[in-house]
């Protein structure tokens, strides 16, 4: 009897013969059953400021208990965590940390949220899902930083327990996704819309890479798409690229490119546009109405917060986000 299976979790839709490992390295067909090899076995466990994810409109100034396992559904040439994202789970140092222990540790370390991050949480979906259910029971919020490369059905199921998602919108062309990440753009756009529909608090991160995705015409198109499909309130983080992994031939993103990108996004109508991985006033939150500074940040740390009950302290304008 043939024992071939097909994974229905991400758009890669791996077809696996008996004994074969998946493209994401975290799954395997054993005797005709598909297994997750990383359940309860994170290779990275840290307590981080929530700003590091980055979330700027979600419980600012709090800490997030952050976990990841080995593996990823994409293979981005610029990956900053490639040592674990492109590794097999057998090759990483893993903790034995079942879902109830994750929640226990989050509470022990006084974290308001658990973040599924660093690699791609889709590869440890079952672990994330079970942990999120327990966390919810104990009033710990769930957040994820994901590339959004996941099928709609599992994403909708997960959304019931996910409070916030930061999605990497890596570029706005299929060519970039094909050539640089070995993936495609369309499923990511679909995930953004699904998360919005499901009421998950959404932020977007775009790593600006010199010559690869810094064309302002395409940036403008991307921002117009966000405005039309997700609305003007979704915060977007333009992050500075540093040479990593297979893209060591490119220079770090110049500050001028980042400020131009930010201006393009704001001119397109997005209200909360940030610059990351570099010290700049674009790290701060400003009231879209009275223009006063609401949250002053220095790197990942909040220096002052002028949002009170979700409103600007100066002009009482409601500021979108999850503030308590």
């Amino acid at each position, binding site marked *: *009897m*043939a*024992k*071939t*299976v*097909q*994974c*229905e*979790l991400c758009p890669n839709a791996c*077809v696996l013969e008996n004994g074969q490992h998946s493209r994401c390295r975290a*799954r*395997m067909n*054993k005797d*005709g*059953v*598909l*297994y*997750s*090899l*990383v*359940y*309860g*076995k994170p*290779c990275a466990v840290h307590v981080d400021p929530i700003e590091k994810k980055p979330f700027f409109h979600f419980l600012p100034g709090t800490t997030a208990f952050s976990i990841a*396992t*080995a593996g990823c559904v994409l293979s981005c040439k610029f990956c900053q965590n490639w040592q674990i994202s492109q590794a097999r*789970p*057998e090759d*990483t*140092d*893993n*903790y*034995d*940390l079942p879902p*109830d*222990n994750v929640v*226990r*540790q989050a*509470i*022990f370390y006084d974290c308001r949220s658990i973040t599924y991050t660093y690699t791609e949480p889709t590869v440890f*979906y*079952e*672990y994330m*899902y079970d942990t999120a259910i327990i966390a919810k029971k*104990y009033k710990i919020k769930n957040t994820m930083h994901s590339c959004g490369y996941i*099928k709609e*059905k*599992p994403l909708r199921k997960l959304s019931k327990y996910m409070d916030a998602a930061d999605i990497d919108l890596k570029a706005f062309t299929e060519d970039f996704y094909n050539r640089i990440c070995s993936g495609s753009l369309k499923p990511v756009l679909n995930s953004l819309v699904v998360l919005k529909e499901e009421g998950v608090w959404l932020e977007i991160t775009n790593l600006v890479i010199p010559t690869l995705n810094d064309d302002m015409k395409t940036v403008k198109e991307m921002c117009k798409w966000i405005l039309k499909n997700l609305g003007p309130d979704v915060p977007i983080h333009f992050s500075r690229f540093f040479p990593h992994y297979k893209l060591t031939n490119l220079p770090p993103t110049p500050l001028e490119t980042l400020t131009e990108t930010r201006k393009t996004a704001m001119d397109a109508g997005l209200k909360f546009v940030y610059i990351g991985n570099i010290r700049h006033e674009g790290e701060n939150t400003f009231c879209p109405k009275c223009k006063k500074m609401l949250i002053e940040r220095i790197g990942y740390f909040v220096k002052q917060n002028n949002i009170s009950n979700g409103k600007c302290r100066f002009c009482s304008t409601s500021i979108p986000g999850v503030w308590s």
Partner: protein
Amino acid sequence: MMTRREFFRFFIIGGILSLLGKKVNAGQKPKEAMFWRRID
């Protein structure tokens, strides 16, 4: 609501024990995946 007993069992004891977490190999006790199908 969490009882006092649950609090002790879940957080204090568990928190301390889990701090002693040991490194293990992945795949020792694999878990069946949630989204897949047979294509025989």
